[in-house]
């Protein structure tokens, strides 16, 4: 039937034409929700795009999911904050051109009523010990993100086997930073958050920063190209252009220039390593 064949042809062409239409220069970057929600990319990417004409498409998921996207070849560049997981990724041969780029810091946020009495402290491990001892409500992202990995490292360093010692006070939401903060806000619970997301978070309720400044709370970001040897579809030149720019003086300055409410969120620390 002439009509049916024509419709089928049109549909196939329409579907096939779509990727063709998007042939402008672009790369896909798998990054984390906390990085996107802090607003860093909205500030950073236009500068890069204006300079190079390369569109950067950021898919913001948890660190674990971002690295898995890299393993599947669904991203060109991975930009996350979990050095242990990143090293594993590179050792697997999944990532190349790996660079440490910047750090931000975590803070312990909690209810102003502070049942565990941690406010003003400068030691995150001490704070966690007090929270566990008081069995005060604590929200964990529990989503294999960089933040979650850091939280688990802190519990371990504090000498607490959280897997065995958790109780109803320890609430695992399996969600991104924002939703976890929403939960903490409505429960009046403690939570480990990155400063960037916290500063732009609007549903604070009764929460406030109670512990900050501990060097252990510094959170390192790394960037790498997905290995083109394993995934031939990776846009090597465009991806490397982005990585090289982020660690260049211009890129590092752009990172430092990003402020929320007058506060700098990310501290560039690329040292050629």
């Amino acid at each position, binding site marked *: 039937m002439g009509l049916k064949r024509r419709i089928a042809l049109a549909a196939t062409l329409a579907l096939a034409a779509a990727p063709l239409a998007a042939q402008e220069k672009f790369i896909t970057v798998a990054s984390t929700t906390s990085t996107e*929600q802090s607003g860093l990319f909205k500030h950073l990417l236009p500068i890069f795009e204006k300079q190079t004409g390369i569109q950067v498409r950021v898919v*913001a998921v948890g660190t674990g999911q971002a690295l898995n996207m890299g393993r*599947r*070849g669904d991203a060109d560049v991975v930009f996350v904050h979990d050095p242990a997981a990143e090293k594993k990724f590179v050792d697997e041969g999944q990532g190349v051109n790996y660079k440490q780029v910047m750090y931000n810091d975590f803070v312990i946020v909690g209810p102003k009523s502070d049942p565990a009495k941690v406010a003003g402290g400068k030691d995150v491990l001490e704070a966690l010990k007090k929270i566990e001892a008081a069995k005060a409500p604590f929200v964990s992202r529990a989503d294999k993100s960089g933040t979650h990995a850091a939280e688990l490292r802190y519990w371990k360093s504090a000498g607490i086997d959280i897997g065995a010692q958790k109780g109803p006070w320890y609430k695992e939401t399996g969600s991104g930073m924002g939703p976890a903060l929403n939960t903490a806000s409505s429960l009046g619970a403690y939570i480990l958050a990155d400063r960037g*997301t916290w500063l732009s978070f*609007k549903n604070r309720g009764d929460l406030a920063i109670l512990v900050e400044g501990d060097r252990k709370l510094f959170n390192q970001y790394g960037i790498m190209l997905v290995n083109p040897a394993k995934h031939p579809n990776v846009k090597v030149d465009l991806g490397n252009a982005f990585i090289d720019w982020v660690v260049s003086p211009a890129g590092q300055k752009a990172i430092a220039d990003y402020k929320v409410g007058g506060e700098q969120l990310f501290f560039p620390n690329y040292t050629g390593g």
Partner: protein
Amino acid sequence: MDTILQAFRDAVRLIVELDAGMLAIIRLSLQVSLSAVAIATLLALPVGAAIAVGRFPGRQATIVLLNALMGLPPVVVGLVVYLLLSRAGPLGELGLLFTPTAMVIAQTILILPIIAALARQAVEDAWREYQEQLHSLGAGGWKAALTLVWDIRFSLFTAVLAGLGRACAEVGAVMIVGGNIDGVTRVMTTTIALETSKGDLPLALGLGIVLVTIVLMLNAGAYSLKEVAQRRYG
């Protein structure tokens, strides 16, 4: 209550200001959902009609399955399409992941059973009325089914609107296969999810009000078109 009042204020502000970014998000939402509805309707109506008038082994089981698929969770559909379109998956070569095309594919799969199941019921009911007459005139098989489908087009329209509603409302499928990329695959529902997770609840709710208003206008427009057409031929 404050949140809700603020939400209405935000909704009005969004509509009045209508900045370029907002317009782009609304345009993409409509493009994706309307495309999905168009394709799904083209596929679902013949399938629903065929099941309605056909007699084949396993027909009852097919009907039960079709009805059950109306309840396909969007996030599951998104996951399956993601695995298909991922570079590591069978259709990775097409490079469709994280594009609006992938979102259209996912939504089409999601709403196809809805339109087909509702069409099947409408066609089956009408078939009882029309069958003998069409048979008598010499119209058989798919010719009769096509005539029937066109004749009850106004009833089928509601099935199509049901599909449209589902497409506009879902977030799970488009989030996973689209990646909610700013400026590329961000639609109304994923924006609402994003603002919610950033804690900006009034803005999220305001966007929700805008979305519902748009869908309402779509439905009102479609209904009046149908009324005009129906008045001519009963």
